[in-house]
C-alpha cells in the first residue's frame, strides 16, 4: 500500500482561483481583436477605460455608484443559483422595486422624518421585487414552469407596467401641465434622498477640500472621493452590509443551509425531509427582493424619481449575473467583483468620450466574461470530482 503525500503545492486551488481572472483577460483580448478589426486602437481604448474608472475622484465615485446595484443584484443572483434556480428576471424585479419605491415615496412625501420614510420606501421596493421573483418561483415549484423563461417574460411585463404607470397614474403633473408628457414621475421629497458620502463627511467635520489641504496625487483623489461632493451615496454601505448578512444567512443559518442543500441535490434534500418547493420559492423570492432593493436604492440614492424602466434598470439585471458569477457565487466575492464591473461600465462611458468607441462594447465584453467563466468551470468541476474519487479510494483502502 502506498503512503499518500502529506503536502503538495495546491496548484489546483491556484488554478481555481485564477480562472475568473483568466476569463476577464480572455474576454478583453477578444474585445481587443474586435476593436482591431474595426480599425480602433485597443490599447488606447483600454487605457481610457481604466483611467476613466479608477484614477480620478469622479471616476471612482461613479464606479462605486454603479457597483452598488450590481452588488445588490449579484447577491440575489448568488442566492438563487445556490438554491438551484436560475434567475434571469432581476431586470424586471429591479423595475418592480423601483416603481413601488417611487409610489411609496410619492405617497408619503414629506409627511415623516427622512429615516423612517427611507426605510419604508426600501421595505416597499424590496417587498415588491420579492413578489416579482416569488411568482416565477411559485410557478416553478408548483407547476414546473421553466424559471428561465418565466423570468424573461416577467421582465417584459414589468417594463410595460412601468410605462403604463409612468404615462398614466404616476406621471409628473408638471409634465402634463407643460403638455410634454414625458413618461417620468415627479421628484420625490428631498427628505427621502439617501445621504451622500459628502454629507456624512460634513457631519463628521471634514469640510476642507483636498486642494485646500494641499494634497496631491491619488491620495487627494481618494480623499476627495469620500469628502468632496460626488454622486456617491450610502447605498454602497447598505449593499456591503447586505453582502455580509447574506454570507451569514447562507452559511450560518439552517434556512441558508437548506437553500444550498436543495441547490446541490434536490432529490437528497427531499429524502432528508426538506420541503424542496418551499425552498425554491424562497430562493427566488429572496433573489427578487435583492433586485428590488437595488431598484429602491437607485431611486432614493441616485435618480430621486422614476423614469423609463429600461433606463433605470440599465442592464443591471444582466450585468449583476456577471458580477455574481465572477464572485464565484459567494456574497463576499461579489463585493470586489461588483466594483470591477462597475468600473468596466463607467470606463466604457469614458472610453466612448475619449476615443469614440461606443460604450456598448462593454456589454459584449461582459457577455464574453460570462462565456469564459462558465466555459472554464469544467476544470474546477473535474478537480472536485477527482477529489471525491480520491477520498472514496482512500476509504476503500482503509477498509481493505
Amino acid at each position, binding site marked *: 500500500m502506498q503512503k499518500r503525500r502529506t503536502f503538495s503545492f495546491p496548484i489546483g486551488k491556484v488554478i481555481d482561483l485564477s480562472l475568473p481572472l483568466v476569463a476577464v483577460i480572455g474576454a478583453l483580448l477578444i474585445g481587443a481583436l474586435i476593436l482591431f478589426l*474595426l480599425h480602433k486602437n485597443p490599447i488606447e481604448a483600454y487605457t481610457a477605460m481604466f483611467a476613466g474608472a479608477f484614477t480620478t475622484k469622479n471616476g471612482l465615485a461613479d464606479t462605486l455608484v454603479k457597483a452598488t446595484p450590481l452588488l445588490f443584484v449579484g447577491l440575489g443572483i448568488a442566492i438563487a443559483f445556490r438554491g438551484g434556480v436560475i434567475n434571469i428576471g432581476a431586470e424586471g424585479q429591479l423595475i418592480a422595486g423601483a416603481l413601488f419605491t417611487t409610489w411609496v415615496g410619492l405617497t408619503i412625501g414629506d409627511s415623516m422624518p427622512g429615516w423612517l420614510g427611507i426605510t419604508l420606501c426600501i421595505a416597499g421596493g424590496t417587498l415588491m421585487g420579492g413578489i416579482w421573483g416569488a411568482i416565477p418561483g411559485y410557478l416553478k415549484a408548483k407547476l414546473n414552469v421553466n424559471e428561465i423563461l418565466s423570468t424573461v417574460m416577467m421582465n417584459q411585463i414589468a417594463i410595460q407596467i412601468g410605462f403604463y404607470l409612468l404615462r398614466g397614474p404616476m406621471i409628473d403633473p408638471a409634465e402634463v401641465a407643460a403638455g410634454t408628457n414625458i413618461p417620468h414621475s415627479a421628484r420625490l421629497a428631498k427628505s427621502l434622498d439617501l445621504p451622500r458620502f459628502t454629507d456624512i463627511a460634513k457631519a463628521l467635520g471634514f469640510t476642507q477640500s483636498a486642494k485646500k489641504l494641499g494634497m496631491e496625487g491619488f491620495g487627494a483623489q481618494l480623499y476627495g472621493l469620500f469628502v468632496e461632493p460626488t454622486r456617491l451615496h450610502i447605498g454602497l454601505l447598505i449593499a456591503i452590509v447586505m453582502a455580509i448578512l447574506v454570507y451569514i444567512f447562507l452559511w450560518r443559518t439552517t434556512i441558508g443551509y437548506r437553500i444550498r442543500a436543495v441547490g446541490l441535490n434536490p432529490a437528497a434534500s427531499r429524502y432528508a425531509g426538506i420541503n424542496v418547493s418551499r425552498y425554491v420559492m424562497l430562493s427566488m423570492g429572496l433573489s427578487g427582493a435583492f433586485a428590488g432593493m437595488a431598484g429602491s436604492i437607485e431611486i432614493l440614492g441616485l435618480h430621486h424619481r422614476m423614469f423609463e424602466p429600461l433606463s433605470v434598470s440599465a442592464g443591471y439585471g444582466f450585468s449583476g449575473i456577471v458580477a455574481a458569477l465572477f464572485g464565484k457565487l459567494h456574497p463576499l466575492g461579489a463585493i470586489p467583483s461588483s466594483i470591477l464591473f462597475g468600473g468596466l461600465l463607467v470606463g466604457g462611458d469614458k472610453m466612448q468620450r475619449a476615443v469614440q468607441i461606443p460604450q456598448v462594447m462593454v456589454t459584449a465584453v461582459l457577455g464574453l466574461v460570462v462565456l469564459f467563466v462558465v466555459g472554464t468551470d469544467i476544470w474546477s468541476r473535474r478537480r472536485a470530482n477527482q477529489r471525491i474519487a480520491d477520498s472514496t479510494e482512500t476509504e476503500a483502502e482503509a477498509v481493505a
Partner: protein
Amino acid sequence: MNENLTVVAILVGILHSGIRLATPYLYAAIGETFAQRSGVLNLGVEGIMLMGAYAGFYVVFQTGNLVLGVLAAAAVGGVLGLAMAFISITLQAEQGISGIGLFMFGLGASSLLFKTTLGTVEGVSGFPELNGCLPGGNFCMSDIPVVGPIFFGHSVMVYGAFLLVPVAWWVINKTTWGLSIRSVGQNPQAADTLGINVARVRYMTVTLGGVLAGIAGASLSISLLNIFQENMTNGMGFIAVALVYFGSWTPFGVLAGALLFSLINALQLWVQVLGLNIPSDVAVMLPYLLTIIVLAVPFKRSLQPAALTKPFERGEN
C-alpha cells in the same frame, strides 16, 4: 353593410400581419427545436438573431444582394451556434447561463458594429412581396377576395419559414439523422452504446439552430422591417425558446404557438391602430402574460427530451 366590410378588412389585416410576424419566431424556434430535441438548451438565440439581423442588413446595404444577405446571416449564426455548441457540449457549461452570455455578447457586438459601421438607422429595399401574379396577365392571386390578401403579398422569407415546418417534422421523425437526434436527447447513454456519436449529433443540431436563428434575424432586417436598429429583436429570441416548450418540442406545435403568439401581437397592433380604449402598454404586455400562462398549463410536459440541459460524458453510469 359598410361596417361589415370594415370588420372583414380589419380581420384580413390581422391575419395578414399575423402570418408575417410569425416568420422570425418560426425560423428561430424551429432551429431551437432541433437543438433541444438533441438535449441542448440554447438560450442565446436572441443574441444570434441580433448578429444575424446585423450581418444580413449590412451585406444587403453594401451589395444590394439579398441572397448574399441571407447567406451572411446564416454564416454568422452558424459560427455563433458552433461557439455555443463548443461551450455547452465540449466544455459542458451550464446551458442557461452560457446562453445569457451569448445573448449579451450578441447584443453588445451587434450594437457596436451598428454604431461603428452604420451610425444611423438606414433602410434597404428588402425581399419583395409576392402577389402571385400570372405572367403577362392582369390577374394576381392577392386580388382574390379575403383569402388572397391573407395568404399572398408576403415575401419569400415568410413562405420559407412556413415551409420549414413540415421539412423539420420530416427530418426529425422520418430520417435516420432525426432518429439519432431524438435518441441523443432522450437517452444519450443508450445512443452512445448503439454507436451514435452523441457530441457530433449535438454539435450539428446546435449549429443548425444557430444558422436558423441568424436567418430569423435577417428575416426581420431585410424582409419584414428593412432596417437595422440596436436591440431590434427586443426579446423575440427568448420568446422563440419559450415557443419550443409551448409546442412540446414538435415543429407543428411550434407553428401553432408562433401563429397564436403573432396573431395576438397583430391584434394588439390593430387595437392601437384603431385607437380602442386599451392602454397600448397593457396591450403590448398581453403576449408575454399569455406565454407565462401557457407555460403553466401542464399538458404534454412529458414530451420534454429527458436529457435536456444535461451534458453527456462517456463512461458516466
